[in-house]
């Protein structure tokens, strides 16, 4: 009975890592598509979104089965409930990366050579997602805490992107739509960063049982 339980927990862990890896690669792809103006990459990223949705369903099923049939307690219960919450955030990351890809397809290969800040945002959010997944994989509380701190960098970058886009619009009204698209992309990256923080918080919860990882700092 117990070994079956362990087997299912292992399966859950494996699927979670897989889903995390998919999330990492989808935003990396979306960011690359944006910076290179590569529409094909953007299309591939959209395709990948389906796989993430499918993984969410699978993991949900595993979690519910575990809860129903094994009645887990203590750490196991924390791990499973945290997993249930984390997949929601991961699925949102996938969705937002898909949205970014859609805008890139709409822009049809127009690169954002001028927006150094968006590049920085993309790099930071990719780093945050990678770190939050790493924190989950290695059950690393310190790394989870570090993710939350990095969110500030992304937030600041978003403010700067906004300002530079305002400037861009005021200089060239005709390019207003493009500027707004870029703003949306920046906002999506900012949201992805927030989801990464959520994942990190759930990792902290499953490892140490604490909710607010800023506390005690």
């Amino acid at each position, binding site marked *: 009975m117990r070994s079956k339980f362990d087997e299912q927990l*292992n399966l859950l862990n*494996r699927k979670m*890592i*897989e889903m*995390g*890896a*998919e999330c*990492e690669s989808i935003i990396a792809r979306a960011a690359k598509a944006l910076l290179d103006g590569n529409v094909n990459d953007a299309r591939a990223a959209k395709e990948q979104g389906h796989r993430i949705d499918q993984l969410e369903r699978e993991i949900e099923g595993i979690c519910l089965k575990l809860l129903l049939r094994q009645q887990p307690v203590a750490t196991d219960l924390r791990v499973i409930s945290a997993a249930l919450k984390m997949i929601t955030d991961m699925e949102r990351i996938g969705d937002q990366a898909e949205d970014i890809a859609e805008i890139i397809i709409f822009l049809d290969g127009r690169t954002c050579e001028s927006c150094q800040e968006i590049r920085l945002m993309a790099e930071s959010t990719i780093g945050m997602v990678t770190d939050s*997944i790493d924190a989950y*994989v290695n059950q690393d509380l310190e790394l989870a805490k570090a993710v939350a701190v990095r969110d500030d960098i992304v937030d600041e970058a978003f403010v700067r992107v906004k300002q530079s886009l305002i400037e861009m619009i005021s200089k060239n009204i005709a390019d207003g739509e493009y500027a707004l698209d870029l703003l949306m992309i920046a906002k999506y990256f900012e949201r992805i960063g927030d989801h990464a923080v959520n994942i990190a918080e759930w990792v902290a919860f499953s490892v140490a049982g604490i909710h607010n990882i800023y506390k005690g700092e």
Partner: protein
Amino acid sequence: MSKKIFRSIITVAMVVLIASLFIASSFLYDYFNKTQVEQLKGELSIVADNVNKVGIEYFDNFDSSIFRYTLIDVDGSVLYDSQADIEKMDNHLEREEVVEALKDGSGSSARYSKTLTERTFYEAIRLENGQILRISVSQVTFQTLVVAMFPVICAIIFISIIVAFLLSDQMTKSIIKPLNELNLEDPTENETYEELTPVLTKINKQHKKIVGQMHELKQKNDEFEQITDSMNEGLVLLDEKGFIININNSAKKLFDTDDFIVGYDFLVLDRSAKMRQAIKKAFDGKQSEFREERNGNEYQFFINRTESEGKTVGIVILCLDVTETAFAERNRKEFTANVSHELKTPLQSIIGSAELLENGLVKAEDTNKFVKNIKKEATRLVALINDIIDLSQLDEDSKVVIEEEVDLYDIANEVFEMLTLSAAKKQVQLNLNGEPCVMKGVHRYLYEIIYNLCDNAIRYNKEGGSVTVDLKNEGDSIVLSVTDTGIGIPSAHHSRIFERFYRVDKSHSKETGGTGLGLSIVKNAVVYHGGTIKLESTVGKGTTITVTF
């Protein structure tokens, strides 16, 4: 075991009990009956004598509680009975013992009572007057005895159960205790009962075998670990579920992990899409390999299935660092592309001129110009090929060259002689400062170094500029520096100008000539002599290249 012993003890007890009952019933009971009958006979003859003498009156004062006496008349009617009322008794003429007594003078019989609980023995004798005197005694039957003994038998059974239980318990303990306390490391040294000795000998044999096998296994394992740990390639072994069984040092370094990772899912170490796909493929039985970047290096991963008896028992992941190979590959590709391009350009020019000449499209007075052009391009080709040959010789490790004592000052003079013409063309002044510097080296390579440096200094100089070669002995080393007052090299290109065919300004190359291999040859030749090369340059002011041997 305790149960088995218990059962056997109980069985033995029961068998003994039943056997003793049987013996009692068959032998003892019969024996007692016989003596009883004898006693009856004796008693009867005494009483009969008395009755013969005294008559029926004998019974008047007779008192007998053990035996019952009956006097029967000739017609069968009862005259006297010591225990029953004679009025109620019927005719006794038909009784077996009476019939016998009437006939033979004496008779005997035994009869069961109606309930079978008693057995009565009868002895009869014919008196002198023809009457029959009968004596009888009642005895309980064996069955009644058994019934009477039932509580006792139960008690015996009960006690034997308890005793059996205690005995079996104790016996089991005494059997098991030495077994439990067996020293399996050294089975023959145990103090046990002798029945165990064959088992212990067997265990001892087995033990020795196991120790031998364990030793062998450990040795193999150690061997395996030493081999894998000293491997440059990373090696990870996974079990059939994808958990890590073994990871060697190189792989630990590559995946930045430690020994604790053994027993974890491999996904924890690496979750890249390519890796996941390759492992999945390997589980399906297909070998796969892929290249991917890790920690800034390029690795080639080979993923393979290990199987035993047709079943997948694990996965082997082999990681090769192919950074250098990949770099060399890229370099070779680039070099090949460059060489073919560089070789093609002069050849096309030669073919073009030759075709024009062949078709007679060139005026007679221009012919010379075209031939000159062909010669010029052919010379360039030869120079280029010479350069490539030099480079490939420098590249080869197993080169056969003569090292000798060479004076760099002399070489510099030789070079200046060669370059006087081209320097004069560009109106560049050549200066040689310094002292004789003697070193051990290959004359041709050292000549190439100074020649190429000076050639470049002149080629990329301004009109009226100068090229200065300085030669100094500094302690054990020799410092050679070539300074020009030329166009200089932008700092972005500093790291690349020693690459083959690299040109700072691609459009300039045709004008200034040169093969693009000069500095590459210089660098290789300097490296061959164990020297270092340093570049200082300011755009528009000039360049100084310093070589230290």
